[in-house]
């Protein structure tokens, strides 16, 4: 299994301009702040977090729709962090995106055939070959080739999302970034699209980065899941592990916030409601960015940014007071090279009395 995509210490800061008379940079938004991870061929990585945590910015930066302010992106071993124009074209073919809103992401004045054929045309496929390929793609995503001359408004939300998927598949990409691909759809249709995406992955050996805020859908599709908060990765773990034993208090809070669609289990469950709202990314808190909302926070959390520690089973978490781990597991944990550069050397401890109560 080779790495398809390697991301190291990726940062994307947006300048905020202002000031009287003279225009100058007054602040910056830390949208993506020192993120390191990699993806192997054929896997699905789920990326979850609340609005404004940087998950969409991260996916756009990976596609090089944005120029990163720091770090490196390697796609199949080639450094594409600052690639431009022609150098970027072959990589663009292999990385595609499916957007959240199937109403806004399809041009209402173009026919389905033109929409799906556009990436082919841009990459120099001849007209005849194009039509054949579009018909094939339509069938692949569960639509009829007869739909080729229709307009997007003639389709329902679920069917439009299928068109979006067909367009992403046109150039036979290796990696597809799915940005909230089902959150605009009804539950019964969501399930249809999720199943379609899984079938396609199996048939074509695709790699998915599945960006979403719905943890139950993410769990269903993902092999590994990354939890982001305020531009940083808080936890990165095999999918089932995250649900069985979340290590980071934020991951635990996210899971706890989801109501279980089963009345009795929902009543029996003890729920901790996470107080407050995510802080302003222009001025992130010192130390661990989650500390103002964390019930386990101590002095060290306020001053030192926690490194990402690697626990058994490749489970990474950046927390000074990890949950759901034994003292032995904590002692065995190693500092992961994926840790942010600004992180301190402090090793996590269960010693604090509050942390004991939670583990």
């Amino acid at each position, binding site marked *: 299994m080779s790495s398809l995509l390697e991301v190291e210490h990726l940062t994307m800061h947006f300048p905020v301009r202002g000031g009287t008379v003279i225009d100058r940079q007054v602040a910056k938004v830390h949208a993506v702040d020192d993120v390191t991870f990699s993806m192997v061929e054929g896997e699905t990585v789920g990326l979850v977090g609340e609005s404004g945590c940087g998950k969409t910015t991260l996916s756009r930066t990976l596609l090089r729709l944005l120029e990163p302010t720091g770090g490196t992106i390697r796609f199949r071993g080639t450094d594409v962090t600052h690639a431009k124009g022609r150098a970027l074209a072959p990589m663009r073919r292999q990385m595609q995106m499916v957007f959240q809103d199937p109403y806004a992401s399809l041009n209402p004045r173009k026919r389905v055939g033109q929409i799906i054929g556009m990436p082919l045309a841009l990459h120099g496929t001849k007209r005849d070959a194009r039509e054949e390929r579009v018909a094939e793609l339509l069938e692949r995503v569960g639509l009829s080739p007869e739909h080729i001359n229709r307009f997007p408004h003639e389709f329902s939300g679920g069917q439009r999302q299928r068109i979006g998927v067909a367009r992403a598949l046109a150039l036979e990409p290796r990696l597809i970034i799915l940005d909230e691909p089902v959150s605009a759809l009804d539950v019964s249709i969501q399930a249809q699209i999720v199943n379609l995406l899984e079938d396609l992955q199996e048939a074509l050996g695709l790699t998915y980065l599945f960006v979403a805020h719905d943890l139950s859908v993410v769990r269903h599709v993902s092999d590994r899941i990354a939890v982001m908060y305020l531009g940083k990765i808080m936890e990165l773990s095999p999918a089932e592990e995250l649900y069985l034993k979340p290590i980071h208090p934020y991951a635990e809070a996210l899971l706890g916030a989801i109501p279980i669609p089963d009345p009795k289990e929902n009543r029996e469950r003890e729920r901790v*409601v996470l107080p407050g709202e995510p802080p302003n990314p222009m001025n992130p808190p010192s130390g661990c960015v989650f500390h103002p909302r964390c019930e386990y926070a101590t002095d060290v959390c306020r001053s030192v940014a926690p490194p990402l520690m690697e626990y058994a089973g490749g489970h990474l978490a950046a927390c000074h007071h990890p949950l759901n781990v034994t003292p032995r597991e904590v002692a065995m944990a190693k500092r992961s090279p994926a840790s942010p550069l600004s992180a301190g050397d402090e090793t996590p401890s269960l010693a604090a009395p509050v942390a004991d109560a939670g583990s």
Partner: protein
Amino acid sequence: MSSAEPILRVSDLEVSFATDEGLVRAVDGVTFELAAGEVLAVVGESGCGKSVTAMTLLGLTRSANARFAGAAYYGDTELLGASDAELQQIRGAEIAMVFQDSASSLNPVQRVGRQIAEQIQAHEKVTDAQARERAIELLERVGIPNARKRVDAYPFEMSGGMRQRVMIALALSCDPSVLIADEPTTALDVTIQAQILERFRELVAQMGASVILVTHDLGVVTDIADRIAVMYAGRIVEQGALDEIFYDPQHPYTWGLLGSIPRLDRPRPKRLPTIPGLPPSLADRPQGCHLRPRCPHEFDQCAKTPPLVARVPGATAHLDRCWLSCDRKRELREIEPGVIGLRGKHEVELTKGGAGS
């Protein structure tokens, strides 16, 4: 919890709109009652008529191309035929609404406190200063920190969660007896959703108000509802107590709906069960049972419209619209355990203890 006399009675409500594509029947014979202090969740997919039903109760769907039939009684007042002046008295004061999208439902150029005060003054004779004090108090009750200062904020200065709290404060401002909440937390993040639902539940219980909660999220429903009405293509296909719907669902559409939610607390299935096909167009709906083209269990009888009746002996509040006999449904659910409805440790318990909780 619920008294004998329902606070709201809707019978055979029909709402249709004349459009270029023909007559769109958005609501097609909806009947339900809302007891005092009860939370009724109306669930269904986009276009099933749940929002139109809710908005019609407040006369918000009145327009030149709209046609209404049936009746909706709030106490002794018939809402469909009420004059605009009568409705004006009821809206906000007796029946209030929480809208989904706080960004577009609040006035962007007016301070939030002023918007709340305006509603209070529309229904009660109070001075500006008194109304403002009431607004501050309401903002505190819905959990807005530093309410005395935030009362002068504009909506754009607040986060989505805070704005939704303002919407709730606005709805509660005149102490209504019925609250209609149309997807009140759909646009919010899960952690904020949990905060707001908790606060909403507390406030409603304190006030003793009845709630109609319109939503597509079955998770939210389990958190807050006493009773559920499941809508499909303009009709209520099943209604009953929360536990009845979840542990003893009778209608194949409810089976599909419950089955297609990915569950956090269950082993993950290889594939998600789906309801095949698409909901029908409202302008051109199938004859008889609306689910027929998508239903794997349809038979000859389904060409006729099934009545809404209690099919489970002893459970009079649990009604559904399906021609299948109770025994046949039980059989079908045996064939695909785990897929249809929620089965497992709680079901046996419910059957033993009789229906309802």
